């Protein structure tokens, strides 16, 4: 975590950005000519998806540090990042399903490559937790979790490619989601929304990490006090 910006400051920034994003999305950005109001889901759905990638990447980066330095600290960070990433992944799936319903009339479509990719990743990272909780805590678990997290970042591009290839023989027709080019204010709203979601993710990550560290410290204290 950046040491210069404290968590309270970060939370304030998050609230301000979120307020700005909602204002931009609903009051500044024009309604999409093609999709109408339901295009507004895009401003949250896509940034949440991108943020999930960022979090999975962060988790893998910390995992690499675990393998390099064997630190319990990085293990907790990697685990928290992947936990947050999975939450954002679930949100991507749900908002994506709502968007699919709003624009195509179905709750799920296999022709949306992004959604299918998130389903695969969601399953993959859910298995991360199953694996982690089945192994006893210790250096072995840290390293196994780290290796699995690294497999995750390799799986993202490979699956992306696979799903692109699969859509050639499963669904020859491809929907385009973005539609026509975004106008200036639409793009502005998108950027602000993305910044807001990233900062929100950072805040949630830091809070959860602080909780997990406190937990670990408490365990140490209890052992030191002989209980």
């Amino acid at each position, binding site marked *: 975590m950046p040491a210069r910006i404290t968590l309270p400051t970060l939370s304030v920034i998050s609230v301000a950005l979120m307020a700005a994003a909602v204002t931009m999305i609903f009051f500044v950005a024009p309604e999409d000519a093609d999709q109408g109001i339901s295009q507004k889901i895009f401003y949250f759905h896509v940034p949440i998806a991108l943020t999930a990638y960022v979090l999975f990447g962060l988790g893998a980066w910390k995992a690499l540090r675990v393998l390099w330095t064997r630190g319990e600290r990085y293990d907790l960070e990697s685990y928290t990042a992947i936990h947050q990433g999975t939450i954002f992944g679930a949100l991507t799936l749900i908002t994506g399903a709502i968007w699919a319903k709003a624009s195509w009339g179905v709750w799920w479509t296999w022709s949306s490559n992004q959604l299918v990719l998130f389903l695969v990743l969601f399953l993959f990272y859910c298995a991360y937790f*199953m694996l982690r909780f089945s192994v006893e805590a210790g250096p072995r678990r840290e390293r196994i979790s780290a*290796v699995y997290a690294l497999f995750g970042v390799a799986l993202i591009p490979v*699956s992306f*490619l696979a799903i692109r*290839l699969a859509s050639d023989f499963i669904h020859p027709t491809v929907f385009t989601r973005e539609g026509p080019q975004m106008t200036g204010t639409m793009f502005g709203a998108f950027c602000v929304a993305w910044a807001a979601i990233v900062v929100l993710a950072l805040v949630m990550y830091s809070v959860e990490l602080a909780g997990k560290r406190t937990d670990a410290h408490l365990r140490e204290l209890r052992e030191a006090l002989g209980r």
Partner: protein
Amino acid sequence: MSGYVGDVVALARKDLLLELRARDTLPAMLLFVVSTLVVFHFALPQGAGDDAAYGLLWVALVFTALLGLARAWVPEREHAALDGLVLATGDRSAIWLAKTVAALAFLGAAEVVALPAFAVLFAPLDAAAVLGVVLASVGICVVGTLASAMAAAGRGREVILPLLVLPLSIPLVVGGVGASVSSEPRTYVAFLCLYDAVFAILSWASFEYVVTE
């Protein structure tokens, strides 16, 4: 380098000899894959077409591979031999490579039966489809041996292993099915090669961290 190759050959030979003596993995895989194909005959509706059958072949292969991989580290675990092996072997990745070779040999043997059986019972297979099966088998053994070692470290390994391997095998199924049904299988074969290369390097490099204490 000859030491490394020697380690791999010796370890893989040990696994194959053990299997020849005990015969507790390969017969199960053979019976499983043929039974699955028979079940699929009844699961497919009439006139479902060859493409659906190719899809089911891949389900059968993935699950057969899982059956074999679940037993991959059983000999070491039963005799608590893995820790000794890890200490005795200079380069730990040799253990992974040997286990992958052995797993691939079992899966290959199962496929030698499964593919002709599929061709007779369902639909013919062309060279591209067979190549797809070979490449995907390499991929699933590469990833599966490592995942099996991970799962073996914890409780409930039989339950965990499919959860780890299935999401990782989705790209392989895409490549394999594409190689069997597409009119231009070259892209899919190339994709399978890419998958094998990426995950082989990753597994080879990371195996050491999974088994050392």
